[in-house]
């Protein structure tokens, strides 16, 4: 008598979004970026975490948008918010340590959870310049933990990212650039790091001591061995717990009827 959706009822984006939503606990202060992270957080707000406090980077504090904003600068963010102000407030609050969790995205990730959103190829002669960091490294530096949502392709799960935009568990110590544990650099500002990478194939977590990524759960339709072949580094699949929890029918209803009916971030699945 499960309420879980059957495979033909959900798409990968649904699975991703629900898995991400499950990372949030009630009453937490959560900082979410534009796109899927926003849908995931609002899904959590509609389900198990009605008292979470949502911060949008552009300056909305404890927002309760009745419909999904197109971006964090959107006028929709302010509806029902505790305070609408600006970036100084959002980043000060984050740096002060109020944020339990950040929800982010990325183009490339390495085995330590270092994420790249800046460029593909040599930074000094790039193949492709991307958007740049935005608040990704900031939220990731300030929050107690961060969750990344990513498309899974082998070219995105790499040995070394082209550019470390956002810090993982082992990061570069300048001026030399040797990898050290994040804790060593952040001192009193150390609060944690990436707690999960949720890709279109599985959910990955990190050994906080040695900083390495491991597979926690695999999404229905893939296997740990297959996922391992989709990473350029040697993914630890020894700690896998099982399959990722499926979306429920209610979650799918909330995503497609309430949060994103216009399929702005999450396409509807054609019933077969």
């Amino acid at each position, binding site marked *: 008598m499960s309420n879980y959706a059957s495979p033909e009822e959900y798409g990968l984006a649904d699975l991703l979004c629900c898995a991400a939503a499950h990372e949030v606990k009630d009453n937490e202060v959560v900082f979410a970026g*534009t*796109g899927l992270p926003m849908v995931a957080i609002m899904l959590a707000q509609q389900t198990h975490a009605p008292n979470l406090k949502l911060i949008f*980077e*552009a*300056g*909305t504090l404890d927002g309760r948008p009745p419909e*999904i904003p*197109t*971006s*964090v*600068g*959107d*006028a*929709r*963010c*302010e*509806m029902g918010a505790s305070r*609408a*102000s*600006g*970036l*100084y407030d959002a*980043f000060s609050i*984050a*740096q002060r340590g109020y944020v339990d969790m950040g929800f982010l995205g990325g183009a490339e990730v390495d085995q330590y959870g*270092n994420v790249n959103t800046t*460029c593909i190829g040599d*930074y000094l002669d790039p*193949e*492709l*310049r*991307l*958007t*740049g*960091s*935005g*608040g*990704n*490294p*900031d939220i990731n*530096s*300030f929050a107690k933990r961060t969750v990344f949502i990513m498309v899974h392709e082998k070219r995105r799960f790499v040995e070394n990212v082209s550019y*470390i*935009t*956002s*810090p993982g568990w082992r*990061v*570069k110590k300048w*001026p030399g650039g040797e990898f*050290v544990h*994040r804790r060593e*650099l*952040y*001192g*009193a*500002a150390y609060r944690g790091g990436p707690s999960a990478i949720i890709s279109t194939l599985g959910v990955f977590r990190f050994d906080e001591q040695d900083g390495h990524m491991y597979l926690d759960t695999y999404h229905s339709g893939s296997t740990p061995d297959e996922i391992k072949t989709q990473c350029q580094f040697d993914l630890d699949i020894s700690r896998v717990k099982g399959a990722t929890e499926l979306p429920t029918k209610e979650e799918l209803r909330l995503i497609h009827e309430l949060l994103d009916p*216009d*399929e*702005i*971030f999450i396409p509807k699945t054609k019933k077969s």
Partner: protein
Amino acid sequence: MSNGKRITLQQAAEIIKDGSSLTFSGFTIWRRPMAIIFELIRQHRKNLHLIEVNGGSQTEFLVGAGCVDIWESCWVGHELYGKYGANLSRKVAEKKIIVEDYSHAEMLFRFTAAASGSPYAITQTSLGTDIHNPEYDMLGRAGLRDGKRIAKLKYQFTEDPFYGAGSQVLVPAAKVDIAVLCVQQVGEEGTVRVNGQYYSDPEVARAADITIVMAEEIVPEEYLRRNADQNTIASFEVDHIVECPFGAHPTGMFGRYDVDGAFLKNFYATTRTQEGYDAFAKEWIHGLDHISYLEKLGWPRMLKLRANTAMNYSPREKKGGN
């Protein structure tokens, strides 16, 4: 009491000289001073140095037009209407622009420092990232760090001497010649009232040496002064004011109109090549003024974007931009 702050769009653009450093109000695709951006492009402004808390459509328009030599910021794109800054990306590949990357919080704190008269700010962000890779100090590599308008160093690490809190990142104040803002209301004497999120507008206005405010409406100063605690920027922080309804289009404005997603989608799709950009600019910028631009957009489009007063956004605009 008026005091001669009111100027035209054309005059506003003329204040911004070739080689100026420049920053803007707004956030990515919201409240950008597009009507002045278009006028700068019409006036063929060159060698601009953009220093932005974050970039957005205004960056892409200026960069595509070849107005910009240096871009210091952290992000550019059109949010869901264009994944990244295709014009910037092209100019970077062609090495026609210098990009100096900071994080978003670093940029914000750089402006906060400038706005409060400090030469630098203290943060603890982005430690261990390539933002602090000393090889990637692009203004340094270009020999532009004169210590006057461009700081001698991109950043500096230091230790906290007070509480032993560890590594701190010092980032230089963002020194900019001109800030151009786009807001809902400005008074005749320059008092600004922003509705909704004010993003980093107060900081950029105060950081710049000259501040130009373009508003949907210039209102009697006395109207704003009846509720001084609802105003955002003080009169004397503003040097020039311009009235320009729909001046932020195609970006959006809280309480007034939504982002024109279809317009930005089309811009993004058609300006991935320089030829595409030039054709777009020929159609939408050159040979037009603000009124003929609005006429070209037409009433149905603008009425669809118009915000509902109770909601502050448009319930009619399909957010996907189709």
